[in-house]
């Protein structure tokens, strides 16, 4: 067996966290802790890049598989990646170091503990995307609740307790049903190994209930309308780095879960429930876009826009078209970059003015021009301007949707217009207009680290917008095979 590269990806952040745990906690800006955390995550990022380079794009079978007995005769610790999961792993390892750089201004107390929480979070998130056993997946999926609960609860805003509880209980409630389903699958199929389950297939008569149980978990996590209400609360109260992790990666777990498990394991049920997903997605796109228009809090607006964007993702996944699923994956990656950047942008002005209300800004373009330019770039990426990665995803999803269901696609396209409306209006109110609030004059432009983070996010946003081939090449074979397998299993039953 080769070097266990995936396990080391998962374990490295935990090792870093342990190391931090045994260093002394200093008050104020604890540089040592930051450097340790940064070093760990950057090394992790480099490993994942190496993983991408040595990844064989021509096959859809799982690579870098590690298989160890974990619970005798029951569960194996099995991890491996295909073209779909590798992108999410890279997204995770890419966003986390940026989060750690960004904690400079937003986290004032207990910096060391905060970094430990972020590192542990990272390893759980990577675990979710590598897991090839349902129980292992569930373990990582649920374990992520603990650090996120603490991140929101300890370092969050004034209503943090309410938000942390809401986040935790909503997600847990969705997930316990998935646990029932996972154990049931073990008794029905005799294994929880995903690869074996792909081959065996699950009897069609069980699929509907199992699908619904998985759906209850993923719908909360995505989040889909009407169980999205925890997301705005969590985003508003979480510290900037927490919001970034939440928007960029945590939400993607569910989208990934839909592709990997709902489509992969339950094709018959997916076929039956596609109208449900379509309806909820379209409602999410249109309804939450309208809600986003009305928001006065910048973070809340972006949170609602996330719900709308994830609506596109779920829509694309259940078109079961090559373009639709590829579009969804690219949309998730793009949303990971863009929403992270937008939350960081809000964090930048919040750190200076301690207000997230749109009305307290306006006319800052002349005061902080660099910021305004980058903020504009991400605003445009969020509304899907051609040339940014947001466009590629949305375009492919709508293409897939038009193939499958004309009406749904038309309504969803309406969401694109609404998206442009709320994002541009947000930008106009914050950046342009008259300078009414004179306090804003004292604002300073981006400092080096903020500039660095936002540029780091801007480069892939633009690059993949103009040249999305690296992404599409990576996922193409896997998605193609997934759809083939889906159709074969569908016909068999």
């Amino acid at each position, binding site marked *: 067996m080769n070097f266990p590269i995936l396990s080391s990806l998962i374990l490295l952040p935990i090792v870093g966290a342990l190391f931090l745990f045994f260093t002394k*906690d200093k008050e104020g800006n604890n540089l040592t802790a930051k450097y340790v955390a940064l070093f760990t995550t950057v090394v992790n990022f480099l490993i994942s890049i190496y993983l991408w380079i040595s990844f064989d794009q021509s096959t859809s079978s799982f690579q870098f598989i590690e298989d160890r*007995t*974990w*619970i*005798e005769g029951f569960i194996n610790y099995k991890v491996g990646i295909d073209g779909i999961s590798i992108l999410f792993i890279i997204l995770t390892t890419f966003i986390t170091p940026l989060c750690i750089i960004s904690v400079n201004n937003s986290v004032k107390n207990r910096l060391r503990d905060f970094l430990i929480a972020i590192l542990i979070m990272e390893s759980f998130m990577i675990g979710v995307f590598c897991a090839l056993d349902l*129980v292992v997946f*569930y*373990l990582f999926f*649920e*374990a992520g*609740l*603990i650090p996120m*609960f*603490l991140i929101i*609860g*300890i370092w969050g805003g004034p209503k*943090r*307790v309410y938000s*942390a*509880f809401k986040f*935790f*209980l909503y997600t*847990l*409630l969705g997930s*316990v*049903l998935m*646990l*029932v389903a996972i*154990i*049931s699958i*073990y*008794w029905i199929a005799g294994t929880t190994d995903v690869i074996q389950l792909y081959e065996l297939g699950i009897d069609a008569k069980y699929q509907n209930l199992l699908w619904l149980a998985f759906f209850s978990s993923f719908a909360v996590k995505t989040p889909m309308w009407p169980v999205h209400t925890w997301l705005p609360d969590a985003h508003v109260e979480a510290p900037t780095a927490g919001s970034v992790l939440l928007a960029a990666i945590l939400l993607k777990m569910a989208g990934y879960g839909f592709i990997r498990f709902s489509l992969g394991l339950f094709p018959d049920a997916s076929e039956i429930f596609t109208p449900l997903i379509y309806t909820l997605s379209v409602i999410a796109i249109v309804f939450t876009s309208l809600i986003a228009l009305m928001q006065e809090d910048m973070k809340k607006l972006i949170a609602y826009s996330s719900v709308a964007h994830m609506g596109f993702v779920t829509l694309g996944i259940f078109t079961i078209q090559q373009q639709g699923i590829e579009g969804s994956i690219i949309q998730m990656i793009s949303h990971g970059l863009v929403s992270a950047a937008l939350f960081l942008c809000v964090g930048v002005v919040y750190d200076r003015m301690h207000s997230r209300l749109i009305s307290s800004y306006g006319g800052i373009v002349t005061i902080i021009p660099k910021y305004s330019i980058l903020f504009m770039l991400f605003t445009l990426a969020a509304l899907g301007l051609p040339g940014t990665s947001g466009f590629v995803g949305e375009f492919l999803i709508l293409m897939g949707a038009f193939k499958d269901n004309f009406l749904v696609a038309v309504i969803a396209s309406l969401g694109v217009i609404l998206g442009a409306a709320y994002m541009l209006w947000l930008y106009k109110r914050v950046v342009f207009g008259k300078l009414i609030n004179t306090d804003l004059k004292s604002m300073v432009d981006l400092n080096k680290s903020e500039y660095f983070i936002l540029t780091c996010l801007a480069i892939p946003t633009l690059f993949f917008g103009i040249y999305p081939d690296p992404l599409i090449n990576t996922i193409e074979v896997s998605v193609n095979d997934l759809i083939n397998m889906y159709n074969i299993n569908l016909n068999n039953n």
Partner: protein
Amino acid sequence: MENLNLILPEIFISLSIMFLLILGVYKKEGSKLTFNISLLVLLITAVITFNETFAISRTTLFNDSVVIDYMASLMKIITLLGAFLALIISSSYLKTFKIFKIEYPILILSSVLGMMVMISSNDLMVFYMGLELQSLALYVLATFNRDQLKSSEAGLKYFVLSALSSGLLLYGCSLIYGFSGSTNFNIISNQLNSNEYVLTFGIVFILVGLAFKISAVPFHMWAPDVYQGSPTTVTLFFTMVPKIAALTVFIRFLYVPFLNLIDQWQMIIIFLSIASMVFGAVAAIGQTNIKRLIAYSSIGHIGYTLAGLATASNEGIQSSIIYISIYLVMNLALFSCLLMLRRKDQYYEDIDNLSGLSKNHPLLSLCLLVILFSLAGIPPLAGFFAKFYVFKAVLEQSMYFLAIVGLLSTVVAAFYYLRIIKVIYFDKEKDKYDTDHSFWLKFSLTVSTILILLYFIFPSQLIEVVSRINII
């Protein structure tokens, strides 16, 4: 001649109790000596049990009235170790309240002896004798801090209600005896095949009595008051040790004498299980006293244990035993934390007293964090696996309703565990607590927390230990 080696542990512990009583009479201020000897006795008994009986296949003694099998030996060892740990961390608490007396360890030893008899019983009479021995010792323990009103109240309440349940139990036993003509479990099992009306009464009475002893809903009323009123170290003992013996007896009753009557008792157990899980979760939400909260949470946890028993399968029984063992470790850890909340000879037991603990005592709070998330059943901590095995067994029997209700009540239960974490981590800090704790207290907290935290690395070992239990 019977092979007395097999009951050597019981003989040894009874002789030790007598010796300690005599020692207590003749030696002035011998409480420390008694305490240490009792600890030693518990350890030695555990070693003897391990040596003499662990490897032996099922054997019965004294006209089939005592059974020595793998389950009995395992449960005895868990009981003895549990009692040992519960006793060793209680010395400083007892000294603070000036109840560090010779009777305390002796009463613990006698109740442990009673439990050992219960665990090994294969006969209604032997079982009842063991039960009464442990109960009488426990009544006295509950009132041990007799200068405090609450403690006396707790003991009295416990005594009255427990006596009532013992009465019910005895009545059930007499009905069963009337039907089968024997008090021996195996003979009863052969005799009871019919669907007689009155027989169901007998089973119900016995189950009610047993449910009372493990405080399953709706026979839980005594638990919150007794847990709150008793001295903390006694509460610790209550939550850990007697449950193991009661669970073993539960298993024995259901799967030896009543095995043929599964249809009659399965619904009752499912009801007890669901009621305990739901009630334990909901009723704990409003509590402000940690001990009272633990009482409700232990009711909930007993519900999960019963869910395993309700499956009528070996996997179910094994998962229940795993559950109770992991629960025991979590409880030990939780009470170790509780015993550390001391400031100038005063112990604190309200949730508010934990406020902002993480600022002044980061390590203690971290341990509490791990313990509470584990009690809530969040992976990858040990508490999750406990629930996981139980629900795995439950779903094997396609009991979906039980599984879904159980898992949904974990969400409700998660709320009150989160509330404590919120108080510890999110609220304003208060004064510091003392940090000069005894070595054993720190030791038990560290070891149990590490066990909870790292259980997921080696989950197979515990399964292997219990997998040899094959009752059915």
